């Protein structure tokens, strides 16, 4: 039976093994500073091994407890997947268009996707984006991302 309580620890163990294989490849910089008896590789190695042990313990515990059949709501629903795509698209848009235009576009897309018809929502959203833009760039004088195109 494949459920998340088995897949997840195994996934972490695999990742840990990959990390463990990376540790010996740390390159020493040109100018080598004196180091303590516990060196740069010590902590990561200990941590990865501890992580593997914890995951094995989680697997054992799961087996021992014999969980009651879980109500299996999927890890990602349609909405959370939309949220993830939205985040990525928004980040890419910022890179292209800069903060202000990207935010206005993204907000419109979001509200349209959720089939909102209330005009007040759109107006509130635009007001909010512009207000934050003003607050950052003119009051705090913190530069917000500029895009490649604008």
């Amino acid at each position, binding site marked *: 039976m494949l459920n998340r309580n088995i897949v997840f620890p195994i996934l972490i163990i695999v990742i840990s093994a990959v990390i463990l294989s990376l540790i010996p490849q740390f390159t020493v*910089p040109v100018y080598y500073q004196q180091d303590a008896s516990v060196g*740069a590789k010590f902590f990561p190695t200990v941590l990865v091994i501890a992580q593997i042990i914890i995951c094995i313990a989680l697997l054992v515990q799961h087996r021992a407890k014999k969980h009651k059949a879980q109500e299996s709501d999927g890890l990602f629903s349609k909405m959370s997947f939309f*949220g993830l795509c939205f985040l990525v698209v928004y980040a890419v848009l910022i890179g292209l268009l800069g903060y202000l235009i990207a935010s206005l576009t993204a907000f419109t897309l979001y509200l349209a996707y959720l089939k909102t018809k209330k005009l007040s929502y759109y107006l509130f959203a635009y007001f909010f984006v512009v207000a934050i833009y003003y607050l950052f760039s003119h009051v705090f004088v913190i530069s917000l991302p500029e895009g490649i195109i604008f």
Partner: protein
Amino acid sequence: MIDHLFVGLGAAFSLAIFPVLIFGVLGGIILGALPGLTATMGVAILLPFTFGMEATAAMVMLIGVYIGGIFGGSISAILLKTPGTPASAATVLDGYSLTQKGEAARALSIAAVASFVGGLISTIILIAIAPMLAEFALRFNAPEYFALALFGLTIIASVASKSILKGLLAGTIGLLISTVGLDPISSVPRFTFGILDLYNGINVIPVLIGLFAISEALTQLEKLHAKEKIAEKFSNKLMSLKDLKSILPTSIKSALFGTSIGAVPGAGADISAFVCYNEAKRVSKNPEEFGNGSIRGLAAAEAGNNGVTGGSLVPLLTLGVPGDAVAAVLLGALIVQGLTPGPLLFTQNPEIVYGIFSSMLVANIAMLLIGLLGIRFFCQISKVPKLLMIPIIIFLSIVGAYAINNSMFDVGIAISFGVLGFVLNKLEVPTSPILLAIILGPMAETNLRKSLLMFEGSWSFLYERPIALAFILLAIFSLWSTIRRHRKTASST
């Protein structure tokens, strides 16, 4: 000393200073409430504007921002599960649970009162025994920091409410993430894959934004779709007198802890909040309430993080050494004014010292008043429909992640940790240990290795230095009591 204080208090209420102070506190609260904007940034941005100001007014404004900023982070932590600064990460644990129960107003009022108690007691201690605290702080060095970090890491087990194993797993994930970057002792690049942005390690603020704010936005989005009409509960009720009685001892204790932690250079409000939370949970008769809306837990975290404010000025004013990043800017501000922080300041410029002291007292009162009067206004935020609130949280998160270092790379980090946090929530792996581990991991590792260098490979510092030994015993004790508590709850269910 008392007359100096009265003169200072008179000045704090004078027309030249009082508006500046209110401006500072209010500005600090707003900055702190926005994720990614920290008290440090606020103070640094304002620094050049203080050059033309009179010395006391300049310090008052900056200190107002500092005190307001630490409190402001908690407002968004309580209402939106989006801690404005790392110092408020422990506030989320119980503050947001209260909001979910419809008790946002109660939570905010408790936060304001506890922060006030924390700030006030801390200021009084600063005024009364700053030089003694400074002596204590100077005894801290690599071995003590290592032991303190070790003690802090034992909190991971305690924060993990359901499964210790899953909490520990979150801890190792966080600790491993904290090893990314140039190793601080020997400059060996670890897990950097040649990416320059990773050389300094992964910044804790985008991680904070991702783990808490973005993952929460994704979770809310899912609920939105489910169209479950959970009646949104909301009560305007503030805290009761009974609440006050219940949180006061915890708050006072946390204020004392916070002041001591703040006095030690290099340990700040984030660590203090978690340590105080842990301590409150340890002594509590019903620890199972913690994480499910315990008002004591909330008060401990809040008094703990604001308790740092007075403490962090101890090394600054008595030794001329900044205890944290905010104090470093304050040091710069003092020096620009032609003042010499350190033992000389007390004898040469008592009016400045007592001006600072009294304005801290007033700033804490201002924070309490703004915090309490603002509750109605803050609560409007939680009445904004979820449909609109979700993208707003996302926008603030992205802007905040960008602003901390002007870097799209950090935006990527925030998004990645948002997804990680979302998945871990589903798997019932607690996320706050990851944050705690990222804060404490480098402190533990660097100071262990520094100690070994100092003592030429010998581990004797672990038992030869009394403060270090005390923290190590505390760490063992903390672990032991957590395990005992878990055994108890396991056998009772």
